[in-house]
């Protein structure tokens, strides 16, 4: 028997299928957490704070006065929904508000001299120093000065995006870790179960076949009004939802109920090895979940094609659009 005998392949299909289902759950949880924690808005708030704190104003001596005035500006308050920080702020808006706060004492149309004079009148602070340093290299042109302020903001946003990306990656790993531990999703144990229980394996493979026919778990883009090809609609497709059968299979393969060999074998000498295996199994699952649902969907289809190439009646009866369905959802 070679590596690609049916048992091996069916177990591989089963493991990939379980990874796919867990990845879909992981994605949903991550989005939920992002929405609850308003992660992006909070990152943006921190970035703006770094730029604008430590600056008193003419009327107030405390170091957060300028930051407070920034957030009280109508251009910013209009972007707040239910007091939540906006998730995006354009560089132009940022520069416009900073310029306006610098030239607050000057009514009407402002010029470069007003911006510079307004800055010099501010009490000593970080914003004063930064903005005056920036505008001095703008050939005394207001437009160029605003572009320089926009550049200052953009540089800060690059840092914010770096934080955000790292934070999102960290959350992904944490959610994968939590899900793996809560569900006791131990890859080695799953492989063993599938390898030794042909009934369960057959049920999993059957459900994996159904899953492979579904759209990829992704965003889909459609032009709903076919007379307007400039206005697409983006939606999450049905590939992101788990069926009742899939949830039942997860329930059979995962969990802390009947597979706790560690405690059973504690009396024996192998309990250390069993714990080690379990930890390795968890780590494998966490690594797998960090790759995301689309990756495992593709992998499932590849392995299904190997397993059922030219053999499965289901495969033979598939409509030609199956390939499309898996490629674009």
């Amino acid at each position, binding site marked *: 028997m070679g*590596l690609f005998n*049916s*048992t*091996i392949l069916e*177990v*591989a299909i089963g*493991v990939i299928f379980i990874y796919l289902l867990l990845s879909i759950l992981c*994605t949903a949880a*991550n*989005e939920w*957490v*992002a*929405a609850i924690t308003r992660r992006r808005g909070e990152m*943006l708030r921190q970035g703006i704070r770094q730029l604008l704190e430590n600056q008193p104003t003419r009327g107030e001596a405390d170091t957060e006065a300028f930051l407070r005035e920034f957030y009280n500006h109508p251009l910013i308050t209009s972007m707040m929904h239910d007091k939540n920080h906006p998730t*995006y702020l354009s*560089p132009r808006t940022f520069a416009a508000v900073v310029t306006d706060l610098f030239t607050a004492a000057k009514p009407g149309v402002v010029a470069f001299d007003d911006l510079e004079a307004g800055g010099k009148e501010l009490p000593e602070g970080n914003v004063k120093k930064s903005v005056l340093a920036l505008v001095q290299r703008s050939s005394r042109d207001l437009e160029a000065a605003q572009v320089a302020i926009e550049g200052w903001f*953009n540089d800060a*946003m*690059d840092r*914010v*995006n770096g934080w*955000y*990306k790292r934070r*999102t990656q960290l959350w992904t790993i944490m959610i994968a870790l939590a899900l793996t531990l809560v569900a006791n999703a131990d*890859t080695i144990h799953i*492989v*063993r179960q599938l*390898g*030794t229980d*042909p009934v369960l394996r057959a049920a999993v493979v059957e459900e994996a076949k159904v899953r492979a026919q579904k759209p*990829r778990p*992704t*965003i*889909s*883009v*459609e*032009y709903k*009004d*076919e*007379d*307007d*090809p*400039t206005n*697409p*609609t*983006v939606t999450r497709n049905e590939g992101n939802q788990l069926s009742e059968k899939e949830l039942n299979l997860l329930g059979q393969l995962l969990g802390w109920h009947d597979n706790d060999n560690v405690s059973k074998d504690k009396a024996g000498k192998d309990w250390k090895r069993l714990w080690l295996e379990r930890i390795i199994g968890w780590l*494998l699952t966490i*690594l797998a979940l960090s*790759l995301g*649902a*689309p*990756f495992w969907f*593709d992998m499932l289809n590849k392995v299904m094609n190997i397993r059922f190439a030219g053999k499965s009646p289901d495969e033979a009866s598939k409509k*030609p*659009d199956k390939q*499309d*369905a898996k*490629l*674009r*959802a």
Partner: protein
Amino acid sequence: MYPLKRFHICLLLVWLIASPLTAHADITVALTKGFVKKYKDKATIPTTFEVDKHHNTPNPIGGGSDDGDVHIAGRDTVVKLPMVAEIINGKRESDTFNFLKQMSAGQSVPMVGVWRLWFEHPGSEDQVQGDPVALPADTNPDHIFEFHPVAKFANFDCLDSFVPIADQSNEFRGYPADKAFGSYEQRPGTITATDNAIMIMSNQARYNYAEFEMRLTGKPKEVADGYIVLANVFNAGAPPSADPLTEQPRRMIFVKGSPPADKIATMVKGDKLHVLGIPRVNLNEVYAIVSGFQGHDEYSAGGLPYEMIIVALLKD
């Protein structure tokens, strides 16, 4: 069927771990969001193009890569990426070509070209909009962006080049639709974004030109410099009952003033056209995807969004 042995479990685990690592390396192009927003529904970009290297004769006309194009490697002031400009039907555009041959390296001209992002010659390095662009060593440096076809070069209008690519003895037809679109529909694409930039990752693409029949599923929409219409794609001469080759209608881009655009302006839903086209990344879809990001800032499973630039009407 038999239970798994330890050796098999090990092999299976090794394979499961190794399979993600064997995924091929992709190339990323990073664009500013402002650029994407500005040009996502435009056919062309006007720019100032600095000519560095150019063909001394147009490509021959025949099959495969013998597409009759004139390649010009250079740098520009708007897009700011490694790029080439391609004049189609190079032999036909003799005035433009003669002018080009007289230009010295480093000379700049105003140019209007159909923008095209496509991973045809991506090379091995990521490309970032705004990064300094190295002087190209030949007429076809690594590039993801190109102006293709050129619509206006200096004072020479090239819109009359948007016709079948042919000389006295040969006609270039492009790849059959089923082959080309089979590949376009499977292009991998990962899209990520920051507040100010959009990154598109993919790998090398094939089948540059495609010959196909498009059947309009909506009416053409006029934009500033052209027309955009949604259409299903079929093999040339496919029967009315044939299934489309794409999962959903694709955007078709026409450049205002070109013969294909003059034709599409008169057409309605249900009409069909036999055309020669080249694919480009659909920045309208890319922008919509990025705008729809929630929590996760990555889109990777829907393939590379693309649309077709229509360069010529073909006879049935």
